[in-house]
């Protein structure tokens, strides 16, 4: 498990009256989040035309940044490919590409390429950081203007943030509440205040705050697409899920040691397992009769554990809900809902799976959905990784 987590999210408001955006954000992760590439592109004009330009640009920039190709060459390819606007007789889209790679230490190596978007902002905690960019003049044949790329390489340590946004943010309020718009300085001091107020604010919330503020400055009728994306490097939020008794009874205390030494939230899933933990930790296990549904047995409470649930039925329902991406608020108030809420609030989930066979489940009259524990955990892991981009790990005991 990694000791550093890269939280990337964005928020967007379309130009007033538009149903489609001319700003496009793309994100992809490779090799269990060792490399993350995020791209923000703003196409010329607005609506469908801008969206086509921005989508093309973002997608190409994205693909090319995973290839070993030279940066200048990639940029030229993109600009040569873009279609020409019928009215303005030019082809144009801005972009910012952030290539984030986890280095061995607690740091993230950033490769940032900026073309005509407002400059990205960096914060270490709530302190704004300025840095130098290399200017690359493309000197492309047939260019209608000078094309200069800004390129920089730097490291983000834990607690730092990178804000990337379109000109809809910096020009917000122009001619309305502010003569020249919000401008870079305005965005910087606003973001600084938000981070000071809430030092642990997630990327999602910070992006949301910036975009809402820009929208307010535009008096709630955005003059351009407003998009902001945030990269936040932080310590991962961890959750431990323990299910099933150990294969050998002598390992019961080892299991409890593992639970106690874990840093983060702890879930025990399984009646017998919960009883083992309760016995060894000498803490009372109490069934919460208010929290169950006809498909899911009640959860229980034990001091030191975030959640205690029944095993196979609950896990099977959790896996199904995660596979179907069902939002927690649409679920009945039972163990499955609580389980999913905890999963969504975590970055890394570690499973400890006991391999003892439960004789009671070998009865042919029991429904088939009580599958094999290992298969079920496999489904959970896949759903968490594929649908929710969580990191998972597994050990058997």
């Amino acid at each position: 498990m990694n000791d550093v987590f890269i939280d990337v999210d964005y928020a967007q408001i379309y130009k007033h009256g538009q149903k489609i955006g001319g700003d496009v954000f793309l994100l992809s992760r490779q090799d269990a989040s060792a490399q993350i590439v995020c791209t923000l592109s703003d196409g010329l004009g607005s609506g469908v035309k801008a969206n086509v330009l921005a989508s093309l640009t973002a997608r190409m920039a994205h693909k090319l940044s995973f290839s070993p190709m030279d940066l200048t060459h990639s940029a030229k390819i993109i600009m040569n490919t873009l279609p020409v606007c019928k009215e303005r007789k030019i082809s144009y889209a801005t972009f910012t590409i952030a290539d984030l790679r986890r280095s061995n230490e607690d740091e993230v190596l950033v490769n940032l390429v900026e073309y005509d978007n407002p400059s990205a902002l960096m914060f270490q905690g709530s302190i704004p950081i300025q840095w130098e960019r290399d200017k690359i003049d493309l000197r492309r044949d047939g260019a209608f203007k000078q094309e200069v790329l800004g390129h920089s390489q730097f490291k983000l340590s834990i607690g730092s943030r990178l804000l990337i946004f379109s000109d809809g943010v910096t020009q917000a309020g122009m001619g309305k509440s502010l003569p020249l718009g919000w401008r870079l300085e305005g965005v910087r001091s606003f973001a600084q205040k938000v981070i000071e107020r809430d030092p642990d604010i997630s990327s999602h919330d910070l992006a949301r705050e910036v975009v809402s503020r820009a929208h307010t400055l535009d008096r709630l009728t955005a003059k351009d697409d407003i998009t902001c994306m945030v990269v936040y490097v932080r310590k991962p939020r961890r959750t431990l899920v323990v299910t099933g008794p150990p294969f050998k009874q002598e390992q019961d205390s080892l299991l409890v040691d593992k639970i106690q030494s874990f840093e983060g939230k702890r879930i025990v899933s399984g009646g017998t397992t919960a009883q083992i933990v309760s016995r060894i930790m000498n803490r009372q296990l109490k069934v919460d009769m208010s929290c169950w549904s006809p498909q899911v047995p009640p959860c229980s409470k034990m001091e030191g554990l975030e959640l205690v649930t029944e095993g196979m039925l609950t896990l099977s329902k959790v896996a199904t809900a995660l596979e179907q991406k069902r939002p927690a608020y649409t679920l009945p108030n039972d163990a499955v809902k609580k389980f999913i809420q905890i999963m969504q609030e975590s970055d890394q989930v570690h499973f400890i799976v006991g391999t003892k066979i439960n004789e009671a489940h070998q009865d042919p009259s029991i429904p088939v959905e009580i599958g094999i524990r290992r298969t079920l955990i496999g489904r959970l892991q896949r759903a968490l990784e594929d649908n929710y981009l969580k990191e998972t790990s597994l050990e058997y005991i």
Partner: protein
Amino acid sequence: MEKKEKVSVKICVGTACFVQGGADLLLYQDFLDPVVLAGCDIQGVSCIGGCKDDAMQVRPPYVEIAGQVFGEMTQEKLCKLLQEAIHA
């Protein structure tokens, strides 16, 4: 008059019991007589262990009433047993 002690009732909510009728027993507040309810202290328990006991002659779902384990429990049977238990 000395206050009568409540009858301790434990309903198993383990997987095997829950899927074989235990879920119906958790609706005890709907089907039990209020007098019976008042005379019992009803709790859930994560596993009574009957399903793993080879000596156990009866099948799940299990309910423990005043220390004695009963199997193949239904709503009707639970009503009857608790009625007897509070008058015992």
